[in-house]
């Protein structure tokens, strides 16, 4: 495919409502998940800054403090959200994008 065909394909794809829908959905998912991990972390930091004692409180009369599952949980949340995004992208985004590209490629270069 030449650069010229590429440019035509880019223009065609940009006008495809299915592309616009997919990109909007994907961007929404990306920003939503980013916001979740971002604010979870900022909340954790604020807790550290303003209420160290809350994180230091022992769980059920033991020695382990609440801060430990919270901190480790944040690490697991990061891994979990990453897995969620990749699973979703593999299952939905890739196939939809491939179909959109295929259709538009045929439109641009002819059958």
């Amino acid at each position, binding site marked *: 495919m030449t*650069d010229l065909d*590429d*440019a035509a*394909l*880019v*223009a065609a*794809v*940009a006008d495809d409502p299915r*592309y616009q829908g997919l*990109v909007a959905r*994907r961007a929404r*998912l*990306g*920003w939503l*998940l*980013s916001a979740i*991990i*971002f604010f*979870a*972390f*900022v909340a*954790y*930091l*604020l807790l*550290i*800054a*303003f209420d*160290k*004692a809350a*994180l*230091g409180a*022992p769980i059920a009369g*033991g*020695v*382990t*403090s609440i*801060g*430990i599952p919270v*901190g*480790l949980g*944040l*690490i*697991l949340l*990061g*891994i979990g*959200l*990453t*897995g969620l*995004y*990749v699973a979703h*992208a*593999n299952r939905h985004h*890739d196939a939809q*994008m491939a179909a*959109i*590209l295929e259709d538009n490629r045929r439109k641009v270069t002819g059958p």
Partner: protein
Amino acid sequence: MKGRLAIFIATGASLCPLPALAAALEGQAQQQPINWVAIGMFVAFVGLTLWITKVAASQTRTASDFYTAGGGISGFKNGLAMAGDYMSAASFLGISAQIFNDGYDGLIYSTGFLVGWPILLFLMAERLRNLGRFTFADVASYRFAQVPVRSFAAISTLLVVSFYLIAQMVGAGQLIKLLFGLPYAAAVCIVGALMMLYVLFGGMRATTWVQIIKAVLLLGGATFMALMVLAQFGFSPEALFARAVQVKTEAALGQGANAADAAAAGRSIMAPGNFIKDPVSAISFGLALMLGTAGLPHILMRFFTVPDAKEARKSVLWATGWIGYFYILTFIIGFGAIVMVGTQPAYLDEGELLRGGGNMAAIHLAHAIGGNAFLGFISAVAFATILAVVAGLTLSAASAVSHDVYATVIKKGAADSRDELRVSRLTTLALGALAVLLGLVFEKQNVAFMVSLAFALAASGNFPVLILSLFWSGCTSRGAALGGMIGLLTAFVLTLLSPAVWTAALGLGPAPFPYSSAAIFSVPAGFLAIWLISLFDRSPRAAVDKAGYGAQRVRAETGIGAFAASDH
């Protein structure tokens, strides 16, 4: 001497295995004995990686081979290599040492280091792969005037890499000093020389394999350490923490504290402590770690080594998984060190400080767990860790100079691949020398903290430029280049004025900037500067920049026209 040792070990072993190990080390605080196991393992690692470098060198003919290993690395391998690039000696030695000293505080570092990865995936990974070829500047300057934006990217890369390198070189020097009894300067020179060999001849292919091997060894070694620590406590973290609190309480009692104060001191390792003193520092420091991850040039560069966006995505998942797992291990290892190292006088100086320097908690713990053999293994792994990270850093800085400055800014994109390769190699030589020099200058710094300086720079310069160039159509060349520079300089100047540099490193008295990290001011400064400068940019170039956004966005989202993996 040998007979006495044997008696110590025999009597000690009948009571409990730990004092035996401690006794075996008695009286040797001055000069380390030559640890043949460690040397053997290290030599084996170096031999293997140099052989890989030799093979890689025969396949490194073009600039694409050198920068991105031809772009054919799978997501799984790249994820491991990213983890290998990221799990630095500073995080292994620095975080476990911080937990050893302050307990819980080390976990704040770990979470901060991890939470940047999801954001890198959700907003950037696939788009980076679709738009870029060799360096993150390819993406940052995609629709912009090349000279200003590339110049910014190159300066930023060199600054970030320099700070990060300092931390690695200092860690290497301390480690080898302890392990081999070599002078610090010699140790730093060995690291510099080996790293130059990998990068110079093997390029990205050799660097990737060094990182993969190191990641596997480090994860394996850390897993074993964490399991052995937990095994002592019947796999009950609660029992481990309880013993650690007891150890810290007894230590405070031993220093003459009254019972209530001692109990509070022991208990304090279960809660965030003095490491972060005020809210501004807490948020600022967290922002630097989180957003800095998404702006580290040597990490971003790894996205160009995979064939497509899907593999880029997978690499982040693997990397995040391995890195998160590693930080959980580090947490256990740090507490294990409190219990198993902090109670053994053999591992401590007269002043109750760790022998060999503050960052040696994990290394001593390895000895407490598995004697000289395992100490040798972990030391070799830690050394391999430093080599892998340093090689990745150097490669990214060399690419910034040869691809962004030489090929694009000086030669206007018309550089011969062979010439570009030659410039990268010359730069590698210069950077190797610079790394050694910086390692010597910054010998006494806390290495984990030096890394956070690099993160603040990456978060304030590269991150805003990448986000706004990818997602905001109004961003212009002038905005990206000048605004990014303003973010970078804000972070840099505030860092110079902060306690860690102004007071601790330069000894200039109370710091004019009181917070431990600049990010809370410098990240918004970067975004704001790019936004304002772009907004008021009425140049003809600004119109071109804005007009280019539509096509750039489609290519970023779809991968149309993305650089494919190259075979020769």
